[in-house]
Structures are given as C-alpha cells and as structure tokens.
C-alpha cells in the first residue's frame, strides 16, 4: 500500500509533537505519583525522627509489608482487568491455617495444601466471573464469606490454633538473607516476574485490553474468558502463598489476623495509580502504594502520641486524595 498522496491530506500536518507537556505531567502523576509521595514521606520522616531512617526500621517496614505486597501483585492484575477480588483476605487467613495444619506432614504439604485450595477457589471464581458475566464484586464476596466459613470449620470456630511443627517451613518465613527475610525476597522476585508478565507479554496486554474495553477486546480476538480466569487464579494463588508465608513467619495459623485485609490491598493498588475502572496501572505503583501504607504506619508509631488506629485515618485520607487526583487528571486528559 502506498502512502496517500492526496494534496489535501498533507501527511505531515498530522504529525503530533510527541506527548504534550501537560499530558506528560499527568502521565507522571498517574503512574509515579505514589512513588513521589513515598519519597517525600520518607525524607520528611528521616528529618523529623532520628529513629525512622535506620536500617532496622527500614527492614521492619519492608518485612511487614511483604505479605500485603504479594497479595497486591495479584490484585493489580485483577483490577487492571476491570475486576475486583474481595476474597483475598479470607484466602490469606485460610491459607495460614491450612499451612500450619499441613506443616505436620512436611514442607511440601504445608505449601501445596494452601496453594491448591486458594488456587482452586480463585479458579472457580474466575470461571464464574468469566463464564456467567456475574459481577466480580458479588462472586468474590461469596468467596470471602465461603472461605471465612471454611477457615472457621477447619479451626473449630477459631478455637484451635495449629502450630507450625516443621523447621524447614518456619525458615521460609523467618530466615534472613542479606538482612532481609525470605518473604521479602520472594516478594521482589514475584514483583519482577509480574512486571514482565504484565508489560512484556501478550497475556499482560490482553489484561489491559479487557480492562480498557472488554467489548473491544472481544472484537479484537482476545481470549477474554481464559485471561479472566487466569487473572483470578493468579490472585488466589498469591493470596494463598502470602498466607502460608505468614504462617511460617508466625509459626502458627493465626485465625484473626488478615480479616479485612482485602481492603488494605485494594487501597494500596489504587494509591499506586491503578484505576479501579480497569485498563490502566502497573506493579511499580502498587509496590510504592504498599510501601507508602507501611511507612505511614511506621511514622505514626514514631509519633507515639497517636495510636496506630490513626494509621487507617491517614491511609483513608490518602486514598481519597488519590482518587480525587485521578478524577481530575482523567478530566484534564479528556479535555486536552
């Protein structure tokens, strides 16, 4: 095919001057806003508190954030695809109980049992969402309730706390390498892998396409059902893994921690710049969002006067700020 040489068409008049300045700023805020806020918060914290910018404190923040981060990786996939997974908190708790229970049969069972159960539930949720077109909110809410019930059944209404009786499995949660515990390294590895999967593979682009416009994705020949199922499977597996690692860290399947965690995860993902409407976002932002929540928690502990409940107030305020900013950016982009 030749270039249209119609005089009126004037191919060169179509040349757009790259990205406009305003567009670039919007892009930067959208994708790296959380990172910038994180950097500022860290600098302010370091100046204000002597005990904040210590390697020990940094390690604490990173270690305690790692479980949230692992779940948030899966949630990022789900939200970019235009969905939501409310079941991850329950998944996380159930996986912890199952891992602790399974640890008496060895390391492999301790890992595989929670992964299988949470993966299977993720898979089923994905199948229901993708095949029936039911709202992910409802499907995963059912998952949340179901898994909470399952966890209570396994742990005799929470009365029975299984202890981890396997040193190899405990090491998975507690051993350190270069000053950071194993879960932190696993998080880093998964984030890297997830980033490549999302940005540099056809699967990742299909996730963006479905979240951006499912109808268009269908017409463009994207295997929508398969991609959606995979996304919920990934989310379930990662929530299961995080729960298992947490049990390893605590040496027991704690039944009360982690309820409501799904909301923290969603908050972290959204603060990280991923749009709840789908089609836009990324893992760098999510990681920054998770760390920001951790840093806020740590700072509030430093202040001392405030109880840690204020962490939620501040996180909530941040979330509101982010959502409003996104809205304004969105409108600005539409007008330009």
């Amino acid at each position, binding site marked *: 095919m030749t270039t249209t040489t119609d005089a009126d*068409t004037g191919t060169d008049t179509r040349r757009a001057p790259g990205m406009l300045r305003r567009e670039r700023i919007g892009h930067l805020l959208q994708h790296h806003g959380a990172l910038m806020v994180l950097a500022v918060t860290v600098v302010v914290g370091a100046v204000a508190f002597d005990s904040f910018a210590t390697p020990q404190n940094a390690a604490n923040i990173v270690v305690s954030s790692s479980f949230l981060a692992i779940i948030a990786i899966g949630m990022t996939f789900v939200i970019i695809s235009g969905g939501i997974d409310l079941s991850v908190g329950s998944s996380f708790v159930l996986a912890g109980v199952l891992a602790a229970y399974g640890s008496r049969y060895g390391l492999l069972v301790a890992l595989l049992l929670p992964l299988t159960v949470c993966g299977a539930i993720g898979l089923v949720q994905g199948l229901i969402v993708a095949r029936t077109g039911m709202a992910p909110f409802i499907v995963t809410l059912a998952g949340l309730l179901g898994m909470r019930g399952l966890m209570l059944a396994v742990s005799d209404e929470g009365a029975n706390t299984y202890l981890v009786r396997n040193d190899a499995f405990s090491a998975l949660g507690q051993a350190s390498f270069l000053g950071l515990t194993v879960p932190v390294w696993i998080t880093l590895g998964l984030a890297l892998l997830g980033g490549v999967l999302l940005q540099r593979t056809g699967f990742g682009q299909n996730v963006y396409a479905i979240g951006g416009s499912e109808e268009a994705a269908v017409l463009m020949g*994207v295997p929508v059902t398969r991609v959606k199922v995979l996304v919920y499977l990934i989310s379930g597996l990662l929530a299961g893994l995080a729960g298992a690692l947490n049990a390893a860290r605590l040496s027991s399947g704690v039944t009360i921690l982690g309820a409501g965690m799904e909301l923290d995860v969603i908050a972290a993902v959204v603060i990280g710049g991923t749009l709840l409407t789908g089609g836009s976002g990324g893992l760098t932002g999510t990681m920054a969002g998770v760390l920001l929540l951790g840093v806020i928690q740590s700072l509030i502990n430093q202040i001392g006067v405030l109880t840690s409940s204020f962490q939620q107030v501040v996180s909530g305020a941040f979330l509101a700020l982010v959502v409003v900013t996104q809205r304004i950016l969105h409108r600005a982009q539409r007008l330009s």
Partner: protein
Amino acid sequence: MATAVLEARGISKGFPGVLALDDVSFRLDAGQVHALVGENGAGKSTLIKVLTGVYRPDRGTLLLRDEPVTFDNPLAAQRAGISTIYQEVNLVPQMSLAHNLLLGREPRSRLGVTDTTQLYAEAERVMTRYGIRTDVRRPLRSLGMGTQQMVALARAVSIEARLVVMDEPTSALEPREVDTLFGVIADLRSEGISVIYVSHRLDELYRICDRVTVLRDGRVAHDGPLDELARVELVALMLGRDPAEIRRDGATKFTGEHTTTVGEPLVQARSVSCRPVLRDVSVQVRPGEVVGLGGLLGAGRSETAKAIAGALPVDAGTVTVAGQQVRRGSPAAAIRAGVSLVPEDRKAEGIVPTLSVRDNIALAALPQLSRSGVVSDARIDRIVDSFMRRLRIKAASPHQKVSELSGGNQQKVLLARSLATGAKVLLLDEPTRGIDVGAKAEVQALIDELAAEGLGVLLISSDLEELVEGADRVVVLRDGAVAGELSGDQVTEEAIMATIAATGETDG
C-alpha cells in the same frame, strides 16, 4: 462472472417479535466497494452481524469464495479474512496506539517477552503507510478520532483481510480525515480487497462506492451499480417511497395546517454547531406551529433537538426561548425556559421502567411541585391525574409500572412528563416509532391538539408521510447542516426527497 468474495443466499434472521432479515441475498465481488444502505430498522446492522459472525442466521447460507461457511463467532470471521470497523471505534482507549494495532501479534524477543523497540518500530511503519505520523506510544484516547479510525482500519487490514466492513466510518470524522480514509479505501480496492461501506451520506456513497444494496424492512429493496441510480431514486428507495404511489394523503391523523403560525418565534436556534455532527444549524418554532425536521439517519436531526434542549455540548451558536438566551449545555436551564425533549430511544433515555406511571410523569416536574424541598403528594396526584385524562393514558392505575404499558402509552407518559414541567416547546424525536398503528394515530392527534393550544412543536420523523401531514414547515438536514426549508404547498414528499438528494456543496 468472477468468484464472489462473499455471498449471502436467502438469509433470514428473526428476533422475538420481529423478522430483522427476510430472505436477503447479497453478493460482493473482489475489489469492489459496496454500499449498504437503509433507514433505521431496515436490517443493515443485522446483516453485517450475520456476515461477521456475531449472529447466526436462522435460514440461508453464506459462501466464502463459493465455499459454504458458518462463523461461530467474530474471531472465526476474522480468521476467514473478514474484518469489521464499527461505528464507534472498537479499540482500547487507554492502551498505546502501537499496542492496539498489534495486540495479539506482538513481536517477541529471544527470551519470549515482547520486544517493545520492534513493536513501536513496526507500528510506526504501518501507520506511516496510512499517512499518519505520530508518537505510537501515546495512549489511543489522546489521538483524534480520524487517527483512531485509521488505526482500526490498519488493524483490520493487517490481519490479512480480504473484506473490510465499515459501519459508518465517517460519522465522527472531519472532512480532511474523510479524504485520508477514502485514499486508503482506494488503495484497498486496487489491491483487490473488498469493502462493504455503510453510510447515510449520499455524497460519500457516490464518491467511492461501485454498487449499492438498499435494505428496507428486512428485505432487499434494490441492488445494482450505483452510478445508474439517481440520487432521488436512492433516497426514495431508502425511505420506502415508490415515486408512483406518493400521492396518497390522509393516512395519518394530522389535520393539516394550523392557523396560528404567526407571531414571535417561541424558540430560536441560531447557527448552532457541534463539529462534526452539526454545522451552522438554524431553526425556529413559533407558537402553535409544528416544524418538521427531515433528513436521513445521521443527518443531525436528533443532535439538533438535543442541542436545543441543552443535552449536547455545542461549539457555537445560541438558543433563545421567547427572546431570552438559554445557558448552553444545561438541560436544566432549557427545561426552566420551557423546552422539553422527548428523546428517540424511549427505553434508554426516556422512561424509568422500574418507576410507576405517576412517578415517571412527576419526575422532571418535581422542582416545580415542591415547596422548600418537600414534595406535596396531593399536588402530584392532581397533576398526574389531569394529564392521564387529558392524554388518554391507558394504565390500570397511576401506580402501575410504566414498563408494563404499551409503547404508545409509554410515549404518552413521556409527553405528560414534558407537559408537567410547563413546557412551551416540545422537541419530539420519532414520537411514533415502534408503536402500533392505533396508538400512532392517537399520538399524532395529540401533537395536533397540543399545537392548537399554542405550544411549539419540533417534530423529527423518518416517516415522510407523518412529516408532510404533521408539519407546517419542514427543515431538511443533510450531513449535519440545513439543506433547505420547505413551507406551505412546498411541503411534499417529493420536495423533501429532492432536498435530501441535492448535491451537497463541497465545504471544509
């Protein structure tokens, strides 16, 4: 005769209550640009969906290069070389141009991951061939509609298409972008790729199409070379008018001329523009007058009504009601000024199906019916009751759900809602479409009565007979601009069709 690229034989497709396609046959030759035209409900979209694998026909066969085929889904049709560009660009706005263009065919590096450098280079190469040079990494939504359309076209062609279906590709394009598109279509034709081109713009059809198939009421009304068909004949075929049988008055319930058509204009739209759908449109309606808006689908009739009602963001122009300028782009301001729109799509834009008849009528009038924010139930009941009697709305009670009423009664509920706001001007968009004959006559009689009471009515209708008998004056639109105005004895079906068919002056 050469092998047909695609042939449809005796295709029928029904939906509950309607036979959308009735024994339709269609043949497309290689390297041909084939126009597919017809008014709303003629079956164009259904035929396209059958050809592209979205629907399966109830009866009939599809032949691809003389081989019978069945498409289970759009993907199967795409694999067979049939690509479709839909009216609304069906790409992902948030994704980059390059990713949209090459989604599913991303170049990979040796590690198996996407090679972005190559991806962008390839996208740039492809788009250059379509006369577009821009940063292919930009998100699609930041680019103009023309560019987006071109990306959709490039994507469609790049998957080895032998046939490209274009469903009103120019409806959102600027004239310059249309030229680029036509350049590309000419290139496609010279490569032996066929195009099915759906549009209502006669100028465009005559510029690039070789053949035309006119559908009407699910049947083929005409099929043949386009250059042998005069414009007026084409318009007559589309609107379902056999020039021989036009002279047949009295089938509608309109009484004819109204006497009180003098006086100051009640509503006046001056040079309203909303590119690219409306250009410089001026319309005025006087008290007691029914002004018809004529034209083909997509000529800008609904848009004109919406612009007057403040429901369309206009670029330029003013709307005045009784001499007072109405704030632009505010439906609330228009309603306060006394302008009320009864939209074309009752279900999507009009009634609230889950609410009762009473609540639907009172909905828009609530601000007027409430005192310091509190709504008086008794006042609503009085008003609802009076309108139900006056408009002869047949419902079991005011509390019946509006979704349970017939189409005609739903339409009356919408009229009642407009009147309850104290409207002085009614903008009626296809008020009798999709309702049965008896109800149609009643609605028509009602429009007459309302005009006789001194209201101004802007009547949009694709039914020429309704337009001619119902309206005192008819403003004919073509491609978003006023093509002519007919009044008095000039208001005939022939004159309207001739105005639609007249060659548009080339502007832009």
